[in-house]
Each structure stands twice: as C-alpha cells, then as structure tokens.
C-alpha cells in the first residue's frame, strides 16, 4: 500500500478480511510473514506505536464506543496517547465538526442511531489524526440513510489518508484505486474496480455479487455506471443514436 492510496477489500464472510485488518494494527500477530507500517513499524512488535498512525473503524457501532457520553468517547484515544487537555479539547471539537456532530457532545451514546454511533466512532479515530484508516465493514449494520451518512464522511477523507476499506457493498468501492479480493485466506486478485466489476467470471468465482446497477449494466452490455441516472443516460443515448442513425 502506498501513502494516500484508497484500497478496497472484498470477499465472502470468512474469507480473511477481518483477520487481515486485525493483523495490520497488531490486534492479531501473523504466524509468519512480515508487516511494515510507514516504512519501519512492525505491528506485531510495536502495536502501540503503530496504533498512533492507524485508525480502525469496526463493523458494529454498538460495541466500539467506550464511554456513556459522546464527547468523552471521542476523547478516549487522545487520553490513551497522553495528549494535553487543551489540545485534546481542540482536537475533539475539530473531529466532531468533521463528522457533522456538533451539538452532540453531551448526548448519551446509547440514544444515537446506528449512523450517528458510527460517526462518533469515526470522530474518535480522526481525533488521533492517523495517517492510515482501516475500515472493517463499517456500514454493514446500518440502514440506507446510516450508510449514506457514514460514506459521505469517509468520502471527504479520500486522498488525505491512506484508506483500506473492507466491505460487502461493491458500489462503495467505485472510487477505490484498487480492490483486493480475498478468498479462503488468499489474495485472489488485486485489480482496479472497473476491471473487477466487468469480470463476471472472477466475480462468480469469489462469490461476489455486484450491486443491482452494475448487474443491470452488465446484462445490457454497458460498462459499469455508478448511478441510476448515468446508466439511464447511457441507455437513452444508445437508443437515440440508433434511431437517428
């Protein structure tokens, strides 16, 4: 992974996504092989050093929040790093603003919606100002509006952080630089999204199901389009081209 890259990770449940992301920040130790973060840090040896630079967002927003109050939870990572209080206040405020949760400081975390909880978790990670973000299926427990909320906030971070994003929703990875396909603990492919989406054989072999829009485009012989409007525009253009030609 290069700095600033946005990399997707896909594959069926049990394919190794979670294991991979946990090895990267030292929650699990590899049996063999070598991991280096930022050129020199080995998460298996110096997990705490690595975690200063690697922020991790988990699947279940319910089980990642430590403190009963939003503000305290966002500060948790900073407390662990021993950041001074004045700086901490500032960074908590900035982080909360960057996920659109101003005014939520004193709310109790358990009263929030899934999307809001996940944004609190994201704020807690951003407050630490990591270089690398690891996202382990951050939207899989959310409903459509919760997903949108979280994805919008992640979208802004593209290019600013190195991002590794594991997900079941392929349409979330349209803008990824490349996608890693994991199967049975092995890297089955490492390819750009367009090529993966248009390779029906590779998709089927790895039990990947493309989102409706992509499948629709594929069935009609049209290259992947990311929105219903774009797909409809392409269809209409082809029809017009035929009728006028």
């Amino acid at each position, binding site marked *: 992974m290069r700095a600033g890259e946005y990399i997707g990770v896909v594959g069926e449940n049990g394919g190794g996504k979670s294991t991979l992301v946990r090895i990267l920040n030292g*929650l699990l130790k590899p049996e063999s092989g070598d991991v280096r973060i930022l050129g020199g840090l080995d998460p298996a040896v110096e997990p705490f050093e690595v975690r200063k630079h690697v922020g991790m967002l988990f699947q279940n927003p319910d*089980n990642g929040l*430590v403190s*009963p109050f939003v503000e305290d939870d966002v500060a*948790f990572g900073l*407390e*662990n790093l021993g950041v001074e*209080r004045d700086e901490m206040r500032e960074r908590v405020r900035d982080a909360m603003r960057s996920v659109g949760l101003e005014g939520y400081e004193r709310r109790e975390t358990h009263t929030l919606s899934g999307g809001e909880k996940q944004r609190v978790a994201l704020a807690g990670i951003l407050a630490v100002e990591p270089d690398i973000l690891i996202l382990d299926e951050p939207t899989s427990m959310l409903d459509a509006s919760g997903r949108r909320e979280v994805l919008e906030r992640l979208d802004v971070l593209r290019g600013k952080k190195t991002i590794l994003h594991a997900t079941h929703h392929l349409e979330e990875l349209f803008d990824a630089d490349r996608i890693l396909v994991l199967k049975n603990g092995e890297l089955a492919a490492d390819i750009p999204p367009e090529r993966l989406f248009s390779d029906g054989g590779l998709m089927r072999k790895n039990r990947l199901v493309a989102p409706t829009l992509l499948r629709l485009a594929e069935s009609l012989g049209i290259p992947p389009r990311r929105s219903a409007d774009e797909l409809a525009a392409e269809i209409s253009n082809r029809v017009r081209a035929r009728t006028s030609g």
Partner: protein
Amino acid sequence: MGRGIGQFYPGESPLHTLDPRAKILASVGFVAALFLVGSFYGFLLVAAVVLSLLAVSRVPASAFIRFLKPVSFIVALTFLFQALFSRERAVLFEWGWLSVYEGGVSNGAFLAARILLLVLSAALLTATTPPVALTDGIEDLLSPLKKVRFPSHEVAMMMTIALRFIPTLDEEAQKIMRAQAARGAEFSEGGLIRRVKAIIPILVPLTVGAFRRADELADAMESRGYRGGDGRTRYRELRFRLRDGLALAFVAVVAVVGAVL
C-alpha cells in the same frame, strides 16, 4: 427514548458544579455524621442541612422519592421492629399482648430517619454528578492506593464501561425475551423450577452476547491505543477550587457540631 444513565439529573445548581471528589467526600462526611450523632439536636442539625441541600440541588422531589421507594420497606420494618420490641421508658399503650413503649417509638423513628437521610445523601451525590465525573472522582480519590497496588484506574474504567453498557444489555435482554416468547417460551407461568428453567433461553444468549461484545470492545479499545492508566491524560478536568474546599469544611463543621451537640 433513552431513559438516562443512573440517577443523574442534569442541572446547573451550585451542587452540580462542585468537584465530584468534594461531593464524594462530603457524602462520606454525612454518613459519618449520621452515625456519630447521639443527641436529638445534633441529628436535627444534620437532617436540616441534608434537607436544605436537596432544595439547593433543584432536582425534582419526585426523583428523590423514587430513590427512597426501594428502601421504604426496610425503613418501615426497622421502625416496627423497634416500636414493638423495645421496652424502654413509659408504656404508650397496650393492646392484648402488644405493648408499645415510648422509647421504642422514638428509637424507631430515629433509626428510620437515619436510614432515610443516609439514602438521601447518597441520592444527592448521584443526582447531581454525571456518572463519568463520579468515576473520575473515585479514581482520583483511590489513586493513593496505587502504592499498595490497588488498581484504581481499572476499577474506574470498569465502572465507566458498566455505565455505558447497562442500557445496551437491557435492550438486548428485551430483544431476547421477545425472540423466545415468539418461540413459545413463557416467563410468568408455573412453579419456581419451571420459571428458573424459563430463564435459561434468555440467560444463554445474553451471556454469549455479552462475551461477544466484550471481545469487540476490547479490540476497539486496544486499537485506539488503550493500555491501562499509565501515561494517560484525562479529558475531563477535575479542579478542586476554593468553593470545593469551603463546601467540605462546611460539611466537616456540621458533622463535628452534630456529634458534639
């Protein structure tokens, strides 16, 4: 729909803004005073102070009444026990084998009032102090014990997490009960053994779920750089100001005067 954590009542009274450590120590002071006072006037003084603090806190009386409900049975029992079985001073009245003595009634009333005031002073603390501040205060007060290897940070962290997860587990228990009821489980029928048996389908998923949560929480905490209390700073500031000192001194004076009177 949140019911709020613990018994905290958000507000801006002078009591709310006191340092939690001062409030914890003051509560301890009240408890000591209530045990030490022997005379009626001493007791009256402490009682008057506690009751006026209730007013100062501006927490609705209904909240305190709710607090007292669970102990009301014990209070009533204490009073009756004293009134019926103590044989001091003059007989107030006799009714068959039952004779009630003046000393019994006054002792009973005294004990009952003591328990009520104990509970109220504890309620005063939890109603005016956010749980997070409470755990911070406790951690701080216990920190001298670190020298004898008492895990004060860990104890406080445990309390914080418990506070955070009580509502979550409560929700989960509701969900599980509904899921099992949908499968024909009955929780309110049958004898004791049947009822205990009926709990198993709730307890197992709840326990399994709690362990899963604990695992995920541990992952999240570790990945956010948590490694115990060493080298950790605190977001919430505990500042012991002059007013906290004065408040404590006031409670100390009340306790001493009450004990001497």
